[in-house]
């Protein structure tokens, strides 16, 4: 052993967190929760590096008003740990994120069950660039009081926002994308029933 190695080993004995001291494993629920939150509060800066997976489902619940198909969670703060102050979750509509009816699978409660983020909220404000919803109930995946969806500037895409002030919506999002395909929409008795079924405790 060199002197350096001895010194390193000696310093190692002062380590307050040696490997013998257990830490939370990456497979723990807490780790999964932190990771999920990270993925929901932001999106990768280079989409090619981490292609967003949108739920490619539409059609069945076509009667339901569908919200901007490719909305993307954009800023942090929303679904953070309860100890944090920020209570706004921001969503940004992805440019060109249109609804292709042909790409949707038939709607089912089973699919709804699997979305990581679901809430009910009332639209409090609609502008050209953003929609704000006051969340009255989190079914899953968040704690924010307010969710904002920003719509890209410029010509509207076919996935444009369908939110109207004062109306109540049931919204889901997956990996940053607000889901269309009937998984998000103005609250109707049917959709409410699906949500209640899917997210029943």
């Amino acid at each position, binding site marked *: 052993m060199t002197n350096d190695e001895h*010194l390193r080993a000696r310093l190692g004995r002062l380590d307050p967190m040696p490997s013998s001291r257990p830490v939370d494993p990456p497979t723990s629920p807490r780790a999964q929760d932190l990771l999920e939150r990270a993925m929901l509060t932001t999106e990768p800066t280079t989409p090619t590096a*981490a292609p967003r997976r949108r739920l490619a489902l539409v059609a069945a619940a076509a009667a339901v008003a569908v919200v901007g198909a490719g909305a993307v969670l954009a800023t942090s703060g929303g679904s953070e740990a309860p100890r944090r102050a920020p209570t706004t979750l921001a969503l940004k509509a992805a440019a060109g994120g249109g609804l292709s009816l042909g790409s949707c699978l038939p709607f089912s409660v089973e699919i709804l069950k699997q979305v990581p983020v679901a809430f009910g909220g009332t639209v409090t404000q609609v502008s050209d660039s953003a929609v704000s919803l006051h969340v009255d109930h989190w079914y899953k995946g968040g704690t924010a009081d307010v969710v904002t969806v920003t719509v890209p500037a410029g010509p509207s895409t076919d996935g444009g926002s369908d939110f109207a002030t004062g109306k109540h919506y049931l919204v889901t999002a*997956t990996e940053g994308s607000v889901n269309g395909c009937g998984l998000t929409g103005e609250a109707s008795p049917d959709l409410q029933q699906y949500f209640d079924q899917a997210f029943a405790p």
Partner: protein
Amino acid sequence: MSVTPCPSFQALVAEVYGPLQRYLRRRTDEDTAADVLGDVLVVMWRRQADIPPEASVAWCYGVARGCLANAQRGSRRHLTLLRRLAAEPPAEPLADTAGEDPALAEALQSLAVRDREVLRLWAWEQLTASQIAQVLDVTPNAASIRLHRAKEKLKQELLRRKDPDASGHPVDRQKEEWP
């Protein structure tokens, strides 16, 4: 359908999740470490395209370093303090390891923060000079020089304390009896 990151990102998280917790707990209290760990994962996720494949672990330590600095100078520290004052039980303190080797602990403590940190990264996180360079965002050459100097300074401090093993060898307690 659940949120599913790409396998390489998942693998990286699995690799660094434990080491990052150790890194943070070595440098801050439990609450702050938990908060900052979440911040680090957010940055990793957002900037995954920037993560150098050949130095991904060190890159993550560098992010943790930045997030921790932010947390420590930000308002969160204030909030944490308020919360603690309010009622929450204090986080469990880490065992004081200075008793393991008081001379070395004292010598380490007497160094400048910069020197101390480079030694910790070397001995505790077990990083190489080039990994330390990545963490500290300096050139490998600069990191190597910094590490070398820090070791020399530590040895000097041990000498000043008449540590019988200024070269880094473990102290033999019996020899201490014989000046």
